[in-house]
Every structure is written in structure tokens, then in C-alpha cells.
């Protein structure tokens, strides 16, 4: 599903965010990405849907070397990848409902079908009551849940979640994490970056640990977490 081959990323500012990453992620697996702030978790995720381009190495996603995608192929890649952004990235001029429906609009899904699906995910993420509000009218945690809802609404084969529970209380965090695990069960490959160690420890999934751009620990293809 995903294969990093000696991937490095140096930002134009000169910061080396990733150093010679080699990593393989199996289809349908659930992987945690952990590491101190600034260790390169978000950068690694951004490479996977071409928000950023690697400066070295090769990166396969969906069996394609995405470093070689032409600009016109990029939207297709992104349509197959649900992303929960660390900073939410909700469209400010659209309501909660419209934000989530937007990705279905892109796919040309009929309104009736959209309605069913959007309603479903907003219920799952517990934010249906706010469906007619604009993002600026929501609390931090509510915005984060909308971002989760948008990422999963079109049932993408790949789901990337960058710190999806940073603004959530422990109960809601658990709810979202269980939701992600459930989605993984349906065959979706899930990659979650997080600082929440108690979640990582309790969920017992594969865990990859980054530090200053390198992988310093990997619990392996199995389903065990790293030892604390």
C-alpha cells in the first residue's frame, strides 16, 4: 500500500524534516506515528498525498510512485485519501454540512446519496447538532470532529489522521479512535500521528516512532505497540 524508499525531505528553509526514511505499510493495517514535536510526523503524512514533494528517494502509494505523478493525476490520489489535518483546514465560508459534502460534490455523487452519507458520518463523529454552523462558530474539538467526518465520508481506501484528537477530551478521543479502528476493519489503511501515549498503549497497534526526521523505533508489522 505504502512504501518509503530512502525518502528525505529538506524544506526550502533548509530544515531537514525527514532523513532517509524506509517504511512499508500493509493494506488494511492500522499504524500509529509518534515522536516529539517537530520530529517530522506531519511532513511524512504530507508526502503521502503530495501536499509536499520529497527531495530524495521514492514513495509508492496505491502501487504508484507518487513522486512521478503529473499535476493532473494528483486530485485522483487525494480523492482516494482521507486526511484529518492537524489544523483542520475547514472551508470557512461553508457550513459543517457543506464542508463534509464538498468531497462528495467533487466525486459527483447525487444529492440524495450525499444526504444519507453526510448525515451518517456527522452522527458517528457526534457533531450532527452543529451541521448548519460555520467553522468559526465551533469549539476547537468540534472543528476537529468535522475534519474527521470529512476525511471518512467517501470511504477512502487510505486514511491519514494528523493528531486527530489534540483538541478532544479523553472520552471523545476514545470515541474517535474506536471509529478509526472500525473503519480500518472495513479494509481501509489507517495511519494516525498522535502525542496521546495512553491511546497508543491501550490500542496495541503497530507504532512507528520518529525523532528529528529518522525512524528510531518500529513495533513491526505485527499489532503490538512499542514498549514505553
Amino acid at each position, binding site marked *: 500500500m505504502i512504501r518509503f524508499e530512502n525518502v528525505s525531505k529538506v524544506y526550502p528553509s533548509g530544515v531537514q524534516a525527514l532523513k532517509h526514511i524506509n517504511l512499508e505499510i500493509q493494506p488494511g493495517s492500522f499504524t500509529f506515528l509518534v515522536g516529539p514535536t517537530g520530529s517530522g510526523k506531519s511532513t511524512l503524512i504530507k508526502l503521502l498525498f503530495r501536499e509536499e514533494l520529497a527531495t530524495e528517494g521514492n514513495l509508492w502509494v496505491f502501487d504508484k510512485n507518487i513522486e512521478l505523478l503529473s499535476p493532473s493525476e494528483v486530485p485522483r490520489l487525494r480523492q482516494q485519501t482521507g486526511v484529518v489535518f492537524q489544523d483542520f483546514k*475547514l472551508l*470557512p465560508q461553508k457550513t459543517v454540512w457543506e464542508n463534509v459534502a464538498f468531497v462528495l460534490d*467533487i466525486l459527483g455523487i447525487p444529492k440524495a446519496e450525499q444526504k444519507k452519507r453526510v448525515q451518517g458520518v456527522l452522527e458517528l463523529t457526534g457533531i450532527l447538532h452543529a451541521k448548519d454552523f460555520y467553522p468559526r462558530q465551533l469549539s476547537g474539538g468540534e472543528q476537529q470532529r468535522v475534519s474527521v467526518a470529512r476525511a471518512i465520508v467517501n470511504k477512502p481506501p487510505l486514511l491519514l489522521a494528523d493528531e486527530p484528537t489534540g483538541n478532544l477530551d479523553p472520552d471523545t478521543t476514545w470515541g474517535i479512535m474506536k471509529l478509526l479502528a472500525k473503519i480500518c476493519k472495513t479494509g481501509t489503511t489507517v495511519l494516525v500521528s498522535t502525542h496521546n501515549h495512553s491511546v497508543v498503549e491501550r490500542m496495541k497497534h503497530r507504532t512507528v516512532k520518529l525523532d528529528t526526521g529518522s525512524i528510531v523505533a518500529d513495533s513491526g508489522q505485527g499489532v503490538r505497540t512499542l514498549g514505553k
Partner: protein
Amino acid sequence: MASETHLPRQMLYTLQQSSQNILRSPLMSLIVVSTMLIALSTLGFLLLVMSDLNHMSDEMATQLKIVVFLDDQQDIDKIAGDIEAISGVKQPLVKVDREQALEMMTQDLPDLKEILETDNPFPASIEVAVTSIELMDDVGESIRGLVGVEDVQFNQELSYQLEKVQNSVQLVGAILAAVLILATLAIVVNTIQLAVHYRHTEIEIMRLVGAPHWFIRLPFILEGLIFGLVSSVLAAVLLLFWRVVPYAQLRQWLGFLPLSDSLMPILWISGLLLVAGLGVGSLGSLLAVRRYLRLEV
């Protein structure tokens, strides 16, 4: 691109997005439309004024006369008929027979009148006006060629003078119009770019969640078209209003000037503004959105 079955849905979606964007950023929309309105109506106003000046100077030109002196033996009415047949000649002609000519020439010189009473040396003449001052020379030449015409006189210097004035007004008007058309286009494109710039985070987010270029672009272009439509129609209404109320007043005050009261120019100018508004509106949007889409890695 959208598959065929998606096309009507896509059109509906685009229309809905555009109207949503316009209504949800009312301040933005207002600023863009008002800038376009101001630019287009200034342009329209200049074009209208030029068209009116043109009409007016044509009117004035017809007050300059060609004087045609006749052979002593000719029938003045027959020659007048010949002259009227020349294109560019304005009806009716003014005929002066030999007695009237003598009367006019000698009214300040009673001495001379006595001397000439018995032997009138002044020929009959016809005064001819032309419909447009450029025709003065040609019409004069044609008349000179008629049988029975002894001499043709007109204030050539003065007609050249007036023609110069007309030409220079037209030239200057054309330069001004060209400058203003370019300025209007550039300003509107700039303004729309600023408005799109304001929404670059939105464009960025749309791209990140997988919207293809055309999907992002279409609503912006339609928005530009709507802005163009609204502002050019408003500009046309403003021009019409100017023509019907303040300009009508002006025509009364300036009764001595031959000001046109035709609504025809408004028609073609409005058409032109519409085309310009739609063109610039969509072009501006396209250029601006492209700038962000080109950033695509």
C-alpha cells in the same frame, strides 16, 4: 473532466457555489461590483460623449456654406436641381438671384450702387451646405464641374480649420478611449485578482481534499461572469439615466449647441460594456485562480 452524466449536476453545482460565494462575502462582492461598475460606466460615458461630440461637430459643419456663382444666362432652379443630386449636399439650398446680389453687395456703399444701377456686374448664386465637413472639397469640385456654374467659392481655410478641430477631437477621443479601455480592463482584472487572492486559503484547501482544477475554477469564472453581467447592466442603466435626466437638462441650458438627443449610441455602448464586463470578469477570475493552481506540486 466531468463524465457526461455528471454534466447537468456539475452546472447546477457551479451555479450554486458561485451564488453562495457572492452572497456569503457580501462586502467583497460589493467592492468588486462597484469597482467594475465605476470603471465600466466611466468608459461608457467617455464613449457616449465622443459619439455626441462627433454628432455635434457634424451639425456645426453644415452651417458652413459653399457659394456657387452662376453664368448670367443660366436658369437658377435647374442648376439647383443638379446640385441637390450630388451626394453630401444638404437640403434646402439658398438661392440668390442677380438683383438680390446687387442689393447685398451695395447696401453699405450707396455711391457704388448708383454707379452700377444700370450695369449689374454681380452674378446669381446658390448657397450650399454639406452634411459633413470632410465633403466640402469634393462637393465643391463636383459643383464646379456642372454646366452653367461660373465659379465656386467657399472659405477653404476655415473649412480646413473646422475639419482640423473635428479631426483632432476625434483623434484625442480615440486615444482617450483606448487608454480608458485598457485601464478599465487592467483595473477590473486587478480587482478580481485581489478578491480571489482573499480566498486563496479556500482554494488551497479545495486542492488538498482532491478537487480537480476545473472544479475549483468553474465557480470562480461563473462568479466573474455574474459580476460582469451585473455591473455592465447597471452601467448601461446609469448611462440611460444620464441621457434621460441630467443630459436633457443640459441640452435645454445649452440650447445654442446642437446636442444630439438620440438614444442609439447608448445601445451600442451598452452592448460593448456587456461584452467587456463579461470578458474581463471571467478573464480576471481565470487568471487569478490559475496563479494559485499553478502552485500545484
